């Protein structure tokens, strides 16, 4: 298998099968069956065993003619990756293809009101009653739960085992009376996430992933893929204006998935608007504001260059240096400083929102969205623990929760 042979083969297949006047799902079925949808996956499961180094060739060929790939958006990609690693053959048959085709929509049911940073402290319970697992409890921050077909559920099956060993991972059908989904309204007014309540919801035994008590290992796989694809969120938003039925269907799919993320650029601080806004308000002539703008630009550029150093080292096959672990923390600082600078630039108008506020409320949305960035996906404090322990090799936090029955570990009271 060479670069040239892969290129020739994928190009020939695309020429024979790709056209813009077909349905999205029908096209993806063809694509999945050919193995070119997920070429690095095993041949037995919709792939071609392609070495990862050759995957960019396939991507290039798709991009060259604008061919659409398998469904990459939302939690479905994490579900597919997790089940490919840990699922039974039966689970792979039932779920992989419909996830890759975009027919099934997924959500991730990990975080709970009582366990945010400490995911392994989950208290949603799963009990085997007869031949069904019965689920009771509450999940939170669940993106897409209101239109998801399936959920990736982390639940407690053993209260006497230490916390990490008492968890089990399930695939739960979201369309059942025991599952209730309510939107969770955030401080910026959007309701991008949900709360999910389980009251005697049911899971058949064949939907248990891996083994009872090994849910943490499965969840770790999901989280690893989530972290790896975190950067992807930024690129999904770039809708295309290409003409054709299949593109229309893809745009609709993307719009649904992207809807919860529409305020994410504001969450990151919108450094791109700062100079233009300072010129518009005249604050560009204020020496104090100029200093703060310059600090922000320096921080933002340095963060971008740090990420590029990490990527360059990775491409050269060098061991990852500390620069690879700092991006999340750096982006929190950038966002906070950006909100500070936008406030200085905006002055009294910073008291307004919506149509009365600058840029139809975009600036106001920055000011009230930035606090999310240093919490979501690992708080700044957890990032600092990770950096100090894994990068700097400092002692781990003393723990009192790992080596005794979970039943005896102090917990939040959930009322």
């Amino acid at each position, binding site marked *: 298998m060479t670069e040239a042979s892969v290129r020739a083969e994928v190009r020939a297949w695309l020429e024979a099968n790709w056209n813009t006047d077909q349905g999205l799902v029908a096209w993806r079925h063809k694509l999945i069956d050919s193995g070119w949808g997920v070429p690095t996956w095993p041949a037995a499961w919709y792939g071609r065993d392609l070495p990862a180094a050759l995957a960019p060739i396939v991507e290039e060929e798709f991009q060259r003619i604008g061919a659409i790939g398998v469904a990459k958006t939302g939690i479905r990609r994490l579900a597919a990756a997790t089940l490919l690693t840990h699922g039974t053959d039966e689970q792979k048959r039932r779920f992989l293809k419909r996830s890759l085709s975009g027919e099934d929509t997924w959500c991730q049911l990990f975080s709970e009101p009582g366990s945010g940073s400490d995911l392994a402290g989950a208290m949603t319970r799963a009990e085997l009653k007869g031949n069904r697992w019965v689920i009771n409890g509450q999940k939170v921050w669940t993106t897409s739960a209101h239109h998801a077909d399936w959920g990736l559920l982390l639940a407690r099956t053993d209260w006497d085992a230490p916390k990490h060993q008492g968890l089990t991972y399930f695939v739960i059908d979201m369309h059942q009376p025991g599952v209730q989904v309510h939107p969770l309204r955030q401080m910026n007014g959007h309701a991008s996430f949900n709360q999910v309540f389980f009251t005697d919801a049911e899971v058949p035994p064949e939907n248990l992933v891996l083994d009872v008590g090994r849910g943490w290992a499965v969840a770790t796989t999901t989280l690893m893929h989530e972290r790896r694809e975190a950067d992807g969120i930024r690129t999904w938003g770039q809708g295309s204006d290409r003409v054709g039925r299949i593109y229309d269907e893809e745009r609709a799919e993307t719009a649904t998935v992207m809807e919860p993320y529409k305020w994410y650029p504001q969450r990151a601080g919108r450094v791109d608007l700062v100079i233009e806004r300072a010129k518009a308000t005249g604050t560009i002539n204020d020496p104090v504001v100029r200093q703060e*703008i*310059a600090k922000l630009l320096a921080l933002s550029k*340095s963060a971008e*260059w740090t990420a590029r150093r990490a990527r360059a080292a990775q491409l050269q096959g060098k061991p990852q240096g*500390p620069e690879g672990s700092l991006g999340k*923390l750096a982006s929190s600082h950038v966002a906070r400083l950006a909100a500070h600078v936008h406030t200085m630039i905006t002055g009294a108008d910073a008291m307004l929102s919506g149509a009365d506020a600058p840029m139809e409320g975009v600036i106001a949305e920055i000011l009230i969205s930035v606090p999310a960035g240093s919490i979501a996906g690992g708080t700044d404090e957890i990032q600092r623990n990770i950096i100090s322990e894994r990068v700097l090799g400092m*002692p781990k936090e*003393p723990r009192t929760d790992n080596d005794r029955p979970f039943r005896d570990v102090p917990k939040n009271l959930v009322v």
Partner: protein
Amino acid sequence: MQFSFTSEQEEFRSVLRRFLEEKSPPTLVRRLMETDAGWDRAAWRDLNQQLGLAAIHIPEAYGGQGFSFIELGIVLEEMGRALLCAPYFSSTVLAATAIMNAGTEAQKRDLLPPIAAGDTIAALACTEPNGQWDAGGVAATATPVNGRFRLEGVKSFVVDGHTADQIIVLARRPGSTGTDGLSFFTVAGDARGLTRRALKVLDPTRKLAMLTFDSVEAALLGEEGAAAAPFARTMTQAAVCLANEMVGGAERLRVSALDYANLRVQFGRAIASFQSMKHKQADMLLEVELAKSAAYYAAAAAADDDPDLPAVASMAKAAASEAYMQTAIHTIQIHGGIGFTWDNDTHLWFKRAKASEVFLGDPAYHRERMMRVWGA
């Protein structure tokens, strides 16, 4: 733009690091900083004979090694880490760069080889007691007399000015202002009418001098009245060099603070096990790595002579100044009482951080400069 070092550059760095660890231990730094000169001619000769460091970015045609600002940046980062006491920033970075930017072909052939060899120590006298780092601050005058010039005025903050063999002086045509009428001149260190006084300095590892010119005869360097552009370029390139030197010092401090926190026991445990220490160390790592990214980017921009260089040089200088000083403050804090003693080495780097914060312009000056370059 280069975002990672080549394996040759990495190898060069590690050779240099080993060399400087051996040749410039803190004990030697402490000995040299107590001397009036602040450096030792025999050790300087050693440095140049073995590694040719004074010649790094000087073109081969002028007796140099012909490397770029990326390699020069590596040298400075390692010297900053080791706190090397040597006339490197004065002679190779400031004076040689000024000659490269301003000199005629014949002057470069004449002046650069002995600097590259380390035989001549040159210093750049541009700043005056007003402490301004740009052309507007120059008041010293040069009056033409029979094809030569006579200099009048006072230069200050001249790095190694009292020990240099040769002084590159920035002066102006009488009556000119701003960027007009500026020229560079060369003056011998022992010229008649030149009075040199070593200043009492906060950072004893980098000596500064005040030079008083009383009708000193000088030779023109480059074109008469046209020094503003080469001077600005020299200061930009020097800011890049200083930023790289500073991140080397900051990294050294950061690691020393980490090592100490791992060793020091209080309340029955290493203080490194306290979350307040861990989070501080994570923040220090972030600050130093961000500053490194800016310094490395600026060095690559200097190597490519990128049109954006003046802005990114100022950005790097400002970022490195703040990261170095902040790291120095944290490092003393993490050491606790011992960190405030003379015997502990931290203050040597702390003082270099403080002096470097204002040397070549403080962070506020450079941020404003960056904004102007970007047309904001």
